[in-house]
């Protein structure tokens, strides 16, 4: 199995599917000749040409609106939004149109696309190159939301997302684009949507996390283990609809639940997870569930390491919860 980073694995998935299915087209700003500002689509322009790897004018609502139309015609468009922070000009198309097409047409017009976009902090990007907007899409019925944490999952989840009948927001944690490396299966490889992965088994505390913060949670879990506390770390992978069974089964065993995410605390996916845990495992809880998250401020530039829920903030939460 070849070793790849996230960028290479996503590129591999796109290339694989474009070879397999001539309906697949990639479109967005700078995705063509230069291969994207993070080089995720590098080489696709040369292999598939400008009918299928399309540099568009600078208009996110143009990109997504046109992609919806292409999908209605029968293509399988994979638009790239250069940074998730710039998705809002397309928000109307995504929320009012893409998410509701199947429903409002009584199933006559399913509109299917996968929107790929880099998310998250840790690259000194300030407000507009760092945000994690998953909750703003999870709250919209009809959208699926995916966020891989490693190259193999990135490939497998992207191929599943492309083949899934529903529209998918595919969030790529840019902080680990090149830092996360690993073996990636050759050829056709899928990871089913809606299945979380227990990355580290444990029995004292359940930690639910995804994307780049997985590595921070693992770091904290390892430090906690040195003090005799064994955390179960669950990589959610598909953020919505999420794998409730894996989460609840774990919480029932540990009785302690922490969710970690970069996005602001209030009304984040962590809030939904805490609510679900309360609804489904309340009588098993040994301590109040905790959210370790970004703060309810815009994402800062200089103080980004203070903002992010890095291991130095996760570890004390684990210890405190274990002692509760």
């Amino acid at each position, binding site marked *: 199995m070849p070793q790849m980073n996230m960028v290479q694995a996503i590129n591999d998935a796109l290339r694989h599917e474009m070879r397999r299915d001539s309906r697949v087209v990639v479109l967005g*700003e*700078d995705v*063509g*000749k*230069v*291969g994207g*500002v993070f080089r995720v689509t590098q080489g696709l322009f040369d292999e598939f040409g*400008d*009918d299928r790897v*399309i*540099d*568009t*004018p*600078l*208009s996110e*609502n*143009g990109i997504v609106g046109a992609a919806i139309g292409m999908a209605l015609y029968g293509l399988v468009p994979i638009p790239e939004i250069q940074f998730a*922070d*710039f998705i*809002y*000009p397309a928000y109307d198309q995504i929320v009012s149109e893409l998410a509701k097409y199947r429903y409002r047409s009584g199933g006559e017009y399913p509109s299917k696309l996968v929107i790929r976009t880099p998310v998250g902090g840790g690259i*000194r*990007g*300030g*407000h*507009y*190159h760092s945000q994690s907007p998953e909750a703003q899409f999870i709250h919209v019925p009809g959208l699926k939301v995916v966020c891989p944490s490693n190259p193999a999952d990135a490939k497998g989840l992207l191929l599943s997302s492309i083949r899934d009948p529903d529209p998918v927001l595919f969030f790529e944690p840019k902080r680990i684009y090149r830092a996360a490396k690993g073996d990636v299966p050759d050829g056709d490889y899928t990871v089913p949507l809606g299945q979380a992965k227990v990355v580290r088994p444990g029995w004292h505390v359940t930690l639910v996390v995804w994307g780049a913060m997985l590595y921070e949670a693992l770091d904290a879990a390892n430090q906690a283990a040195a003090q005799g506390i064994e955390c179960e770390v669950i990589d959610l992978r598909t953020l919505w609809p999420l794998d409730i069974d894996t989460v609840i089964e774990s919480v029932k065993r540990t009785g302690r639940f922490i969710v970690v995410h970069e996005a602001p*605390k*209030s009304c984040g996916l962590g809030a939904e997870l805490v609510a679900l845990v309360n609804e489904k495992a309340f009588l098993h809880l040994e301590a109040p569930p905790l959210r370790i998250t970004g*703060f*309810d*401020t*815009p994402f*800062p*530039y*200089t*103080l*980004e*390491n*203070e*903002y*992010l829920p*890095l291991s*130095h*903030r996760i570890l*004390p939460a684990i210890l405190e919860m274990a002692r509760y």
Partner: protein
Amino acid sequence: MSTATYSTDRPPNVSGASLEPQAAVARHPLDTCADDVIKVLRDDGSLDPAHDPKLAPSEVIALYRAMVRVRQLDERLVALQRQGRIGFHIGSLGEEAAVLGSVSATRPQDWVFPCYREFGAALWRGLPLQRYIDNMFGNANDTVKGRQMPDHYTYREGHFGSVSSPIGTQITQAVGFAWAAKLRRDELATLVYFGDGATSSSDFHSALNFAGVFKVPVVFFCRNNGWAISVPTERQTSSNTFACKGVAYGVPAVRVDGNDLFAVVKVARDAIARAARGEGATLIEAMTYRLSGHSTSDDPKAYRPDAWLDPWRRLDPIERLRRHLERTQGWTEAQDREIEVAVDAEVKACIAVSEKVAPPSLDSMFEDVYAEPPWHLVEQREQLKAGPRPKGHGGR
């Protein structure tokens, strides 16, 4: 099912050199020899009297100084980024005449809504260099409190707006600002900067439409620098020019050689005068060229051979202006050296100060989210302060 073929693999269409088929490239920014482009500064340094804005010799020298200062700053800031001392810089290499010519046409009462490439305009309107450099370091003295990336400053006192990354958003806001001034019967114009790429944004179209319908005293200044990161202008529009987009909205438009300081000053002054006379908006397309990468994060070699820059290096706005100074004022290398030494000293001094300033306080992260922090922000602030510090506090 074939779309028009598209390739950036072709040599630039050079002013004066043989032109490729016009249909494909007439709007290309290199096409500064087109008939409809306002030019004043001739190759030999003399001025065409038809559009000469008649700047006083001292005004020309002041603008030359400002352009050289901006370029020297660009070089220094790129070097600082490469050394890891600042995180980012987005400069205006090659676009100095477009930026300074236009802002110099503004009057004290006028306002500027910037894109992100016009720190030269902010400095022209009085932004203290130290304050700009503090922003580049995102330190505790940065007036935007280290919250935004470098080059995202504000300068209200100088009637200069707040830089934001999302493309195009300032264009509609500038229209509203100018419109409000008109409703209040205040005699002022608002100058808004944006790139060729931004003309594809919905904001651009809404802005021109509102400005046309309500005869708003705004000056739309499009820096057509040939590129939106790696995407060339022919992927932004199939119109022959960006200026012609004004026609659809009833907004008069003009194309100008953006590397010709005098021509830029002339069209910008005319546009502000039109606004002041109550005649409404003007769209200016300044044809220039981005000689650097998009920013320090970009490697233009991936999409643009260096040789493409040669014709534009020959059209360098600073070199062209210098030839004029040489011809009309006997400008010497010693005078250039004087500017260089002076700018170098002031820049070095500012950097030395900024670099020593501490990062913004933890408290500052929670300020300005709302006018007053609600309970949940107070609670989160106290939790942060009581908790452990990460590695690399204060940025790497």
